[in-house]
């Protein structure tokens, strides 16, 4: 069949494309060629692009919109595609100017009397874009969950969730929209919400075109291929990793007092300066004390606060060097506030500015009631702002967040402490960006920042047209391998991978519409596309490996294999024994400084060793240390369970490779090399000697170390005949473990067996074993590839789909693929757990309780966070909550019985009663400050929860309509009026 794919159409017939088009070469360190961009096209299979495309009449006519600045190549490239009426995916850095492309698509649609939809992942961003577009075009409307303005306008700004539900409902917009713009489309990889993008893109009207705006993603082409396939239309890719303002990356070592340039604006990594920076780190020993009292805020405070804190010193330096305005990113709300607190002695604004700030602030707060104006968050913020310092995170009152954004844009805030959310979409660049930490807590552990995150956040540095370069500063508080740093600073952007998953609401909506089929959605998902695409590659790989394996022929393979297995067994037993003996529990007491220790030499080749014993050497113990855990509760672990390393003085070969990474190899004492102290895991200890030497305290001078090693050699010589006296595991180290005894007797038994193998005596035995080992490795690789192949050839999620449909049938939501009453209720609910809420509603729980109780109960659906000292709900509310838990339990059980993978306990405990009292009080008419006093949460979080609650109520109103219960419907309406008031629903300043 004609399944050819014409990639990257010959450009010769598209004369209109500027000559600057260049396929980007290897972009290693080549920041020299700034204005290149990559243009490629994906065609659906079998699509024959007509030659006349470039001669479209639009070409001669005036552009739909002109811009006050000359366009960058990627912009004009993308605009060209739009002019030709073809979809385009634009992938470029933060602040590169992607909005220009969106603006053009909007202008073109309006000119042609077509509708255009712009979607963004965040309500706040939608509000701002609405304002931006409204100023430009006027025929603009806005639809977020919170507000609806002029829904009949030609250009509609909305959140992606709204767009999804409009498509399910079949709004007329879907028939009039010519262009759909998905901004920040890389959000598709979001674990929770990403699937909404996939649904929206798959279901999008067949005859419309798309503009996708995304951060740099390495697989933009893959995404475009998918769009081309699903929508049977060409989709262009315009990719650039050009930054309008080049960046310089510095390191600020904690405890030190200077900046070290590690990556210059040409993109070159500076080895020397990196090492200097690390050397300036306050060494761990001296930091010990500090480390203790600041456990996990380590480095940020290092025991000192206020003017002595690192952050203060650094901000001061930034101001002195006129690197402001600066955004300091940190990864938690509390940390953000804490850091801002350290700035109490800093004043960055003059009196005029202070007056201005005060005016802007109070005119924004004007819409608040007097009580709300007195909220601590409001009154505490102003003094900070007046000094030119701001805070921005999701815990703030939305109105405060907005006023701070405005002040920042006006240049009144010189130093802003923000969380990661500030790096998404808002056009608020600064001159400098500071990363207050290089590690981030990602839900279960601390990990290094990914290069993708680094790229996104550092994109805020450098204001286009104002700064000639942007500055990024990394505050480093612990030893960092140059490779890690390099990876973070210069690594590639994160790939755009599908985060598709099924939900009941999705299934019901799909089943409900005449031509919707969940299977279709799955088949068209990006997830399936990516899985399918990996197949041919995998198959090829498996084939190559199989050929390689079959080409290996070994004589006497059987007996060799038996010998091989015996060896493996022997080695694994040895490992077990050592694992027991040198577990911290037994060996820690013997790791005193001065003890001679036998350790494994570093293996020279990667091939496994097939002799009976490993190569070993001797050294002397200097110290042992607990490995710093990565998770917080590590500190509470028992010493036995923690990981330790032992510092040993021995002979090593220290090498630096070209990137400056140090490699240390432990070698034999007789070999050439330098005396050095290395940190080794306990597993590398072969045995401990009973001999101890006195070693000097200061091992820094090289002679001292050399001397110490000489002594070690002397001891070894003295015992060369009878062998070194070793600590006996049972007698000396008091190892009492039955598994130890079992393993050591097995070892003895095995040792006698070796004699029986003729093959072992062959001179080439080592080589033979190596070959066999390779063969075995190949076999296991092939196996694992085949396993993935098997799982991905079937429709992704097929089993889960079956299971979920089964659950829906058992609960009476669907029958014969027709959605029943209950299913219709659940299909209306998308902002809370649809099954539990539907069951609760149909069990009549809401029917005869007071409105306030009902609202309070519903709050459990929108609050997941577990609060430390949340107020326990009073008895009536507690009983309601228990009912909710029962229902959730039943719902989860049915799912489990239907073979849906679900953790019942987890599911039930995902409903939290923590804000029931506060929400109850709010529904009763309490003031916001009153309910804040009841719950230890951030203002912004509570407001978000109540707004979401209102969304749920709106959906419940629709649900009540669908079953025809007027009384219940009225009750939900009443609930809305009770909670929708004051500061919680204060309008956005952008509107």
């Amino acid at each position, binding site marked *: 069949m004609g399944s050819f794919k014409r990639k990257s159409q010959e450009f010769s017939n598209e004369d209109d494309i500027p000559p600057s088009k260049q396929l980007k070469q290897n972009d290693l360190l080549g920041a020299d060629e700034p204005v290149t961009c990559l243009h490629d096209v994906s065609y659906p299979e079998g*699509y024959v692009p*007509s030659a*006349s*495309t470039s001669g*479209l*009449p639009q070409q001669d006519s005036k552009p739909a919109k002109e811009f006050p600045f000359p366009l960058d190549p990627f912009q004009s490239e993308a605009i060209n595609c739009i002019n030709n*009426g073809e979809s385009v995916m634009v992938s470029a850095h933060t602040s590169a100017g992607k909005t220009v492309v969106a603006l053009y698509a909007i202008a073109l649609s309006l000119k*042609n*009397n*077509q*509708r255009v939809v712009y979607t963004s992942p965040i309500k706040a961003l939608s509000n701002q874009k609405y304002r931006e577009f409204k100023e430009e075009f006027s025929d603009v409307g806005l639809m977020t969950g919170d507000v609806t303005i002029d829904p009949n306008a*030609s250009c509609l700004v909305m959140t992606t969730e709204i767009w999804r539900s409009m498509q399910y*409902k*079949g709004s*007329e917009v879907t*028939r*009039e*929209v*010519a262009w759909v713009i998905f901004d920040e489309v890389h959000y598709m990889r979001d674990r929770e919400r990403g699937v909404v993008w996939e649904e929206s893109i798959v279901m999008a*009207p*067949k*005859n*419309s075109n798309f503009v996708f705006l995304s951060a740099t993603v390495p697989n933009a082409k893959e995404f475009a291929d998918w769009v081309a396939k699903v*929508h*049977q*239309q060409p989709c262009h890719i315009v990719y650039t990793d050009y930054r309008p303002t080049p960046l310089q990356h510095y390191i600020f070592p904690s405890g030190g007092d200077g900046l070290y340039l590690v990556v210059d604006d040409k993109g070159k990594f500076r080895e020397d300066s990196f090492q200097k920076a690390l050397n300036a780190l306050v060494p761990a020993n001296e930091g010990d004390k500090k480390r203790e009292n600041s456990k996990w805020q380590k480095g940020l405070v290092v025991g000192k606060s206020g003017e002595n804190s690192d952050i203060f010193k650094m901000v001061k330096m930034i101001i002195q060097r006129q690197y402001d305005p600066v955004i300091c990113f940190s990864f938690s709300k509390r940390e953000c506030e804490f850091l801002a607190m350290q700035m109490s002695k800093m004043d960055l604004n003059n009196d005029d500015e202070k007056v201005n700030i005060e005016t802007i602030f109070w005119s924004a707060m004007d819409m608040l009631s007097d009580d709300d104006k007195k909220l601590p968050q409001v009154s505490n913020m102003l003094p900070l702002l007046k000094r030119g310092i701001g805070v921005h995170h999701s815990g703030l009152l939305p109105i405060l967040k907005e006023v701070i954004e405005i002040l920042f844009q006006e240049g009144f805030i010189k130093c802003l402490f923000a969380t990661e959310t500030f790096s998404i979409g808002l056009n608020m660049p600064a001159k400098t960006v500071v990363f207050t930490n290089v590690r981030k807590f990602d839900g279960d552990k601390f990990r290094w920042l990914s290069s993708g995150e680094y790229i996104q956040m550092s994109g805020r540095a450098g204001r286009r047209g104002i700064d000639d370069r942007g500055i990024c500063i990394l505050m480093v508080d612990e030893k960092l391998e140059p490779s890690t740093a390099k990876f973070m600073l210069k690594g590639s952007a994160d790939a755009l991978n599908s985060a598709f998953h099924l939900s009941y609401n999705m299934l019901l909506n799909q*089943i*409900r*519409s*005449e*031509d919707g089929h969940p299977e279709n959605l799955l088949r068209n998902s990006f997830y399936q596309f990516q899985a399918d695409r990996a197949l041919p590659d995998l198959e090829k790989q498996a084939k190559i490996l199989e050929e390689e394996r079959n080409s290996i022929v070994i004589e006497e393979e059987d007996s060799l294999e038996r010998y091989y297995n015996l060896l493996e067994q022997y080695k694994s037993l040895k490992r077990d024994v050592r694992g027991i003996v040198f577990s911290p529990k037994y060996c820690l007491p013997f790791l005193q400084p001065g003890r001679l220790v036998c350790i494994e030499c570093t293996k020279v080749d990667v091939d496994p060793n097939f002799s009976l014993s490993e190569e070993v050497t001797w050294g002397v113990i200097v110290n042992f240390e607990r490995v710093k855990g990565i998770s917080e509760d590590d500190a509470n672990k028992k010493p036995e369970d923690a990981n330790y390393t032992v510092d040993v003085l021995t002979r090593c070969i220290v090498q630096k490779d070209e990137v400056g990474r140090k490699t240390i190899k432990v070698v034999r004492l007789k070999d050439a090399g330098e005396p050095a102290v290395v940190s080794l895991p306990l597993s590398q200890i072969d045995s401990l000697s009973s001999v101890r030497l006195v070693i000097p305290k200061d091992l820094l001078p090289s002679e001292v170390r050399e001397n110490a090693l000489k002594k070690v050699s002397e001891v070894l010589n003295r015992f060369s005949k009878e062998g070194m006296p070793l600590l006996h595991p049972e007698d000396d180290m008091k190892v009492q473990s039955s598994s130890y005894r079992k393993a050591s007797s097995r070892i003895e038994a095995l040792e006698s067996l070796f004699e029986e193998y003729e093959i072992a005596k062959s001179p080439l035995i080592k080589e033979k074993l190596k070959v066999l080992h390779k063969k075995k490795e190949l076999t296991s690789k092939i196996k694992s590839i085949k396993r993935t192949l098997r799982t991905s050839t079937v429709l992704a999620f097929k089993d889960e789909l079956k299971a979920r449909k089964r659950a829906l049938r058992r609960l*009476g939501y669907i029958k*014969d*693929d*027709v959605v*029943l*009453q*209950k299913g*219709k209720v659940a299909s209306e609910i998308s902002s809370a757990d649809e099954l539990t809420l539907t*069951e609760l*509603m*149909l*069990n*009549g*729980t809401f*029917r*005869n309780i007071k409105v306030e109780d009902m609202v309070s109960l519903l709050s459990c659906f929108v609050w997941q966070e577990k609060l430390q000292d949340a107020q326990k709900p009073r008895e009536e509310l507690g009983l309601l909550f228990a009912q909710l838990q029962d229902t959730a339990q039943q719902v989860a059980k049915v799912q489990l019985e239907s073979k849906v993978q679900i953790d019942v306990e987890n599911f039930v405990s995902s409903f939290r009663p923590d804000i029931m009292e506060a929400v109850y009080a709010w529904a009763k008419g309490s003031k916001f400050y009153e309910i804040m006093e009841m719950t230890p949460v951030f203002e912004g979080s509570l407001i978000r929860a109540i707004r979401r609650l209102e969304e749920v109520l709106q959906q419940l109103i629709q649900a009540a309509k*669908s*079953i*025809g*219960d007027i*009384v*219940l419907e009225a009750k939900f309406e009443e609930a809305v009026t009770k909670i929708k008031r004051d500061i919680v629903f204060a309008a956005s300043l952008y509107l």
Partner: protein
Amino acid sequence: MRGIQLSFSNTQKLRLEKALAQLESFSSKLNSNATVIVADKIPVDEDAALKGHGTLEMGNDVVASVCGVVERVNKLVYVRPLRARYKPEIGDIIVGRVIEVAPKRWRLEINFSQDAVLMLSSMNLPDGIQRRRTAVDELNMRSIFVENDVICAEVRGFQHDGSLHLQARSQKYGKLERGKLLKIPPYLVKRRKQHFHHLDQYGVDLIFGCNGLIWVGEHIDVKDVMVEDQVNKSDPQNTHSSSLPGSSEEPTDTPLEIRQYICRIANAITVFSALGFMVNLDSIMETVTLSLSLNLGVHEMLEAEFHVRVAEQEAERRSTSKRRR
């Protein structure tokens, strides 16, 4: 005898009665005591019960506001009306007849207590281009549908002003031509996943409108939107002329054979509805096959004997499916 206006011979009468009695015995086991008439009290155990469609709260009592069968889902009670007028639900596929071309909308009679509205913006334009509707489009509305056209659409829902809105999501909705419109009681059409059926062997399209209007017509290939789109794009000059209504190629007459099939299927449905049986694709197809195997002429299907045969067949079918269960 279910009000059938036919003259049966005595044996036919007996046979029919027997078949119907047999059918009755299958259904009467369900919910026989749950039938209510208007103002009947519906027993509910607690006041936590949800009162759904067809019910009213009067003081402490719940009463039925329609005649029908009481249904319960969890704590929800509602009355499923028997032999009622059509009651639209979102997503229903319906067939209706245009009664008025109004500004930006068509009014349709859909066998409901009020007329339905199909907005100009709720259907795809004939040229397939996604755009806002202009005054020109409005003037051209009559070239899309005029009074008395039969069209097929989906129920979009009630708007805030209480009017019922329809929509035509894709090309398969729209004007129905060259076929026969049947009207049967809506309760004989069950809501299913599929309401559109293409009967390949007869070259016929069959649409079961949830509102009791049923369309049997010559099969029309739904143009593949994407293909059409490509043609449009590559050939901008032709787009306008080719898609202009009226200028499309000369209509050819529906072949006699297909016309006969249309009538045969229509008659099968008529018999079914006269007997008061739920219509669904399988049983209608069986009935058509039966008529063909009996070598009956199209008109003979409406005679008494065939009614009896159909009733017997249905009784047979249901008893076998009962047994299989």
